[in-house]
């Protein structure tokens, strides 16, 4: 056999029998795979990518940081943490995940860029898995990190919710924001890799995005429109501020915002798939659904019945009884917003202790405890409550636990001693009533001197200071401070006996501090100082 000489136009082929038709050629593969098998391959790749992301130092560092912060929040020992307000705790869970989201964004971007960076993209392009399915795997690979974040959020929230003093209820819409933030960041990382394939892109994006969020938060804070707050995926003012308020007064479209974030995740994911060539019917349908979901989220967040919300806040601030219920314990009435019903017992304990130290009719005088808020100026600022003028009525706020307990005790004692909350600086300065109030508030406390320092604005037990109370509080002169400190050092039974014996004098505006000291059997202070303004 001799081959035909090769010419440029006629390839040389050896002579011989015709080749077997290609249809009869041996096929070594398994043929057309089913869509299910293809999706299983995507899941396998997603699992591989998740494992790879888990080994990234940025991910490990930021996750450890977030875990540490959450654990810190969980083990923090402050009195008020014993009575967590769950409609604030849910929002508080949104503060930590953005840190983790940052790492997920950068690492997901790096993973999606890997093939391009190391020149394997052309090798992989001829393999069975399409480019857009690889992108889908990258998107799915960040889902476990969102789930991990959800676990952190759940752990934090559950711990708070299981505390016996937990108040109110959280919102699922608020709780899912943290995990959705992480998911969105990861998906954005993948999209950026497909849109602007450079390792500098995510860093640039994070800087620009941060600045945008700062501006949006600033504008939202200035009340320039709901969109600045609710269309930004991340809000810098997610840290709850202001006094706790009933959930229905928050006016936060949390569920719609969560839906908006979910839709946004899906839109970004679909954009990444489409950019990768995944222009299948399923992806197009998913894109349409994602856009519809996002739009529904946007529309749902548009403030609609603001007048009703403002009216509800006005009612809660000015005529709370319309939305409150009341209970009687030991002759006193306790009125609270429904979510605070469980705290009434604790309030009654404080009242009982203060009354047990009082003399005269105060020991049995029925009080009315009114829970109050002032949200007429919005819910993001602390309430400034004016003193009640009705005799026998005591204000209690929406925070409970920690320092709020002795502050409430001061409020109760003020009403027991003076009849109303209207004890101003001028009225109590220099007379015996301030001393008596402090005794009633602190006399039954297990650590009275420490609590005394806590209810003083200057946290000391010397000199004059403002005494904190649920409303305006009052000033305690240096001489009164000296007497109170002496009282708290003495045996409780002895002082209680003297207080009850001299109740009329000790609750009279005409009795001086020096006279009170004599009546109570403690050294008379050398000189009276001016009260703190």
């Amino acid at each position, binding site marked *: *056999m*001799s*081959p035909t*000489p*090769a010419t*440029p*136009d006629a*390839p*040389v*082929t*050896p002579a*011989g*029998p015709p*080749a*077997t*038709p*290609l*249809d*009869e*050629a*041996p*096929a*070594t*593969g*398994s*043929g*057309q*795979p089913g869509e299910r*098998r*293809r999706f*299983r*391959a995507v899941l*396998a*790749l997603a699992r*591989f990518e998740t494992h790879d992301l888990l080994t990234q130092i940025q991910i490990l560092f930021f996750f450890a940081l977030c875990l540490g912060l959450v654990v810190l929040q969980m083990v923090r020992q402050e009195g008020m943490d014993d009575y967590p307000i769950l409609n604030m705790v849910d929002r508080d869970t949104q503060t930590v995940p953005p840190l983790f989201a940052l790492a997920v964004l950068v690492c997901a971007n790096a993973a999606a860029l*890997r*093939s391009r960076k*190391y*020149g*394997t*993209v*052309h*090798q*992989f*392009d*001829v*393999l*069975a*898995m399409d480019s857009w399915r*690889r992108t889908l795997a990258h998107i799915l690979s960040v889902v476990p990190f969102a789930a991990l974040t959800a676990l952190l959020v759940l752990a934090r929230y559950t711990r708070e919710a299981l505390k016996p003093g937990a108040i109110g209820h959280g919102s699922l819409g608020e709780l899912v924001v943290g995990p959705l933030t992480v998911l969105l960041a990861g998906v954005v990382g993948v999209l950026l890799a497909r849109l602007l394939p450079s390792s500098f892109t995510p860093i640039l994006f994070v800087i620009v995005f941060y600045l945008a969020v700062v501006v949006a938060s600033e504008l939202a804070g200035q009340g320039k429109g709901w969109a600045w707050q609710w269309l930004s995926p991340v809000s810098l003012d997610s840290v709850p501020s202001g006094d706790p308020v009933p959930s229905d007064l928050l006016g936060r479209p949390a569920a719609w915002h969560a839906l908006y974030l979910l839709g946004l995740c899906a839109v970004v994911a679909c954009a990444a798939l489409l950019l990768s060539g995944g222009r299948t019917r399923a992806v197009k349908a998913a894109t349409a659904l994602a856009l519809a979901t996002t739009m529904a989220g946007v529309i749902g967040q548009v403030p609609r019945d603001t007048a009703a919300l403002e009216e509800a806040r006005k009612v809660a601030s000015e005529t709370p009884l319309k939305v409150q219920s009341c209970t009687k314990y030991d002759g006193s009435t306790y009125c609270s917003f429904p979510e605070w019903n469980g705290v009434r017992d604790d309030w009654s304990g404080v009242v009982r202790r203060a009354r047990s130290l009082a003399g005269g009719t105060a020991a049995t005088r029925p009080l009315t405890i009114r829970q109050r808020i002032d949200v007429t100026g919005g819910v993001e600022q602390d309430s400034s409550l004016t003193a009640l003028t009705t005799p026998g009525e005591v204000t209690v706020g929406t925070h409970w636990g920690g320092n709020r307990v002795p502050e409430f005790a001061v409020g109760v004692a003020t009403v027991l001693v003076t009849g109303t909350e209207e004890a101003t600086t001028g009225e109590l300065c220099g007379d015996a009533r301030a001393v008596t109030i402090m005794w009633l508030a602190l006399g039954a406390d297990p650590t009275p001197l420490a609590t005394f320092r806590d209810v003083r604005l200057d946290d000391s037990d010397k000199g004059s200071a403002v005494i904190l109370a649920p409303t305006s509080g009052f000033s305690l002169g240096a001489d009164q401070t000296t007497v109170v400190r002496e009282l708290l050092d003495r045996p409780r039974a002895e002082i209680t006996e003297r207080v009850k014996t001299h109740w009329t004098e000790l609750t009279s505006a005409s009795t001086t501090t020096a006279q009170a000291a004599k009546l109570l059997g403690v050294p008379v202070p050398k000189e009276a100082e001016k009260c703190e303004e």
Partner: protein
Amino acid sequence: MTIDPLTEPSTLRADGLALRFGGTRALDGVSLRLTRGVTGLLGPNGAGKTTLLRVLATAVPADDGRFTALGHDPRTAAGRLALRRELGYLPQTPGFHPDFTAFEFVDYVAILKELTDRGARHREVRRVLDAVDLSDVRGKRLKRLSGGMRQRVALAAALVGDPGFLVLDEPTVGLDPEQRMRFRDLIAQAGEGRTVLLSTHQTEDVAMLCHRVVVLAGGRVRFEGTPAELTARAAGRVWSSAERAPGALAGWRTGMGTFRNIGAPPAGADLLEPTLEDGYLLALDGESAEVTA
């Protein structure tokens, strides 16, 4: 395994493949047939070898012409997918993910080949790493492996999933002689029962490995046949002379100080035993500037 190219059925048939890059005809009506076993693809730089391999590996579609491989027509999505599932492709300069271990990299490729059963896939990865003699370093990161080892990882990645059609683009470039010998052995093993298309500059590779050879130049097939047939084409067309023969298609000074000439010998010329390289150079018909020295 002995393969008879005359009776072996075709596993790949290409007809009139053409591809342009701007004004350049990278492929100009390439038609060829491949069978099981190793087929060498010889050609000078710029001959279109890599382009042809990329077309056959479904990396780029041809502007014109068609081909079927293992019974699959890649012009349809289903055919392309079916072919890709049976394809092993080792590009000229394979990329690597340096932070992956050898095992991870091959496993990654196996996933992209849609091997979904984790246990079976891992067994397959271990098998191919064992086949390329890298079992001992499978846990090492690729950035810590030598160039030769990485090339074997790339071959393992091409082999994973037991593809029926293997496309190897100059896999021995940059390897030292010992590594090249090892690679030849691996390719020879890979050719058992598979269709292997091996692009190379090295005629020794073809002589030692291939049962068929295709010579490509200027985007056209210049020869298609067995290595022996290519060698035979130079019979009576290689001669020795004391000076460079003016009419020779190619010629070079040998270590003995005489010139080895290829072309139409003058009468009474001192004819030499032809080699595969002589046949290859003749097939190029002076197209490559590299063949004259």
